[in-house]
């Protein structure tokens, strides 16, 4: 009999309690149990960054954290940050600069980009590229993504 555990956590500001199998990843819990399908599942071993979510304010890989480990945590996903308008400037810049084509990487890319913006520094293009190095985009070639992030950072100036 597979072990299941009870967890209680806050997801996008709402407290939720569920029973989850020990081996379930945070990202599968968010997508399948809570139907928050904005965060994507790509490689499932921490390489692609499509599952990037925020836990207690820090970005993490949703596929490299167990749902049980999120017990008591504050989890934020692309849905929460879109609804709160926290990502509005980035989303606008991504849209205007064509910084996405298929859009699969975009939720994770936005989470990583916002993490950099919140640091409040003025990163160079090289530093922007380093910060999103853990988020793969197979369509754009990254140029427009870096442009969009840079625009938002400069706009804040």
């Amino acid at each position: 009999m597979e072990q299941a555990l009870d967890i209680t956590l806050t997801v996008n500001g709402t407290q939720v309690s569920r029973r989850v199998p020990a081996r379930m990843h945070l990202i599968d819990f968010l997508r399948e149990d809570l139907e928050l399908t904005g965060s994507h599942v790509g490689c499932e071993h921490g390489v692609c960054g499509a599952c990037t979510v925020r836990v207690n304010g820090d970005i993490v890989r949703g596929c490299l954290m167990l749902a049980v480990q999120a017990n008591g945590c504050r989890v934020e996903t692309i849905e929460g940050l879109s609804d709160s308008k926290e990502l509005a400037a980035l989303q606008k810049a991504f849209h205007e600069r064509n910084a996405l084509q298929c859009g699969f990487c975009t939720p994770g890319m936005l989470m990583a980009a916002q993490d950099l913006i919140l640091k409040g520094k003025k990163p160079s293009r090289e530093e922007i590229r380093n910060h999103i190095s853990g988020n793969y985009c197979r369509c754009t070639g990254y140029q427009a993504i870096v442009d969009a992030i840079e625009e938002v950072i400069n706009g804040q100036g």
Partner: protein
Amino acid sequence: MKAAAFAYAKPASVSEALELLRQPGARALAGGQSLIPSLNMRLSSPELLVDITGLPGLSGISFQGNSIRIGALTTHAQIEKSEEIREHVPLLSQAVPHIAHAAIRNRGTIGGSLALADPAAEYPACAVALDAVLVIKNKTAERRVKASEFFKALFETDLEPGELLTAVEFPVAGKSDRSVFLELTRRQGDYAIIGLAAHNSRIVFLGAGSTPILIQDISVQDPIAKAKTILAKSLNPPSDLYNSSATKLHLAGVLLERAWNKLST
């Protein structure tokens, strides 16, 4: 892929964790940034995961006069941000940005990296270069092992079943000490093709063998040409999917040359 089923326990204390780790098939789960991928790919299938995250006493950076003690659960991100580490163990500060990506550095831990002993990882090479001491506990005792004696073979360490790495101690760097960390990758955050962790004349390569490789009989007083000759005799890096042994050896020489000015002045 999805991980195979396992049992999960979240102990409330280190002693409870050590009791659980005595069970056959038990494995400690720290940041999980290497363990969980290996579970997902079903390369490993422990029966019991003992989640040590959040255990009191295993996290944090403390200054102890001649050394800096870093708790095993201290994350890469915490080390990256630490002013104390920047000042007293600058080799680590230089190494951390090379570890994977921001989201992974937020969860991965120094203890996890050392205990896993990936030969391409940054911390094991730094620990050997700096002559760090690893603090290991089991149910009844604590022991201390020098980094140079800790890494035994590919992914093999001195850790015995039922033991837990609880902290690592680095000597504080003096004013005349020189530290250089360099790494070559195809993309930022990728596994190292080859890397160098050097503290004065203790020059260690990562990604160059089954453990961190300390180059014997090399001195920063020597001219670089002599050092490169010693390197060529001492290092025999295994080829990987993309780079031959000869390429890696050449790149090791390139890194040594880049490091030499800073090390020798």
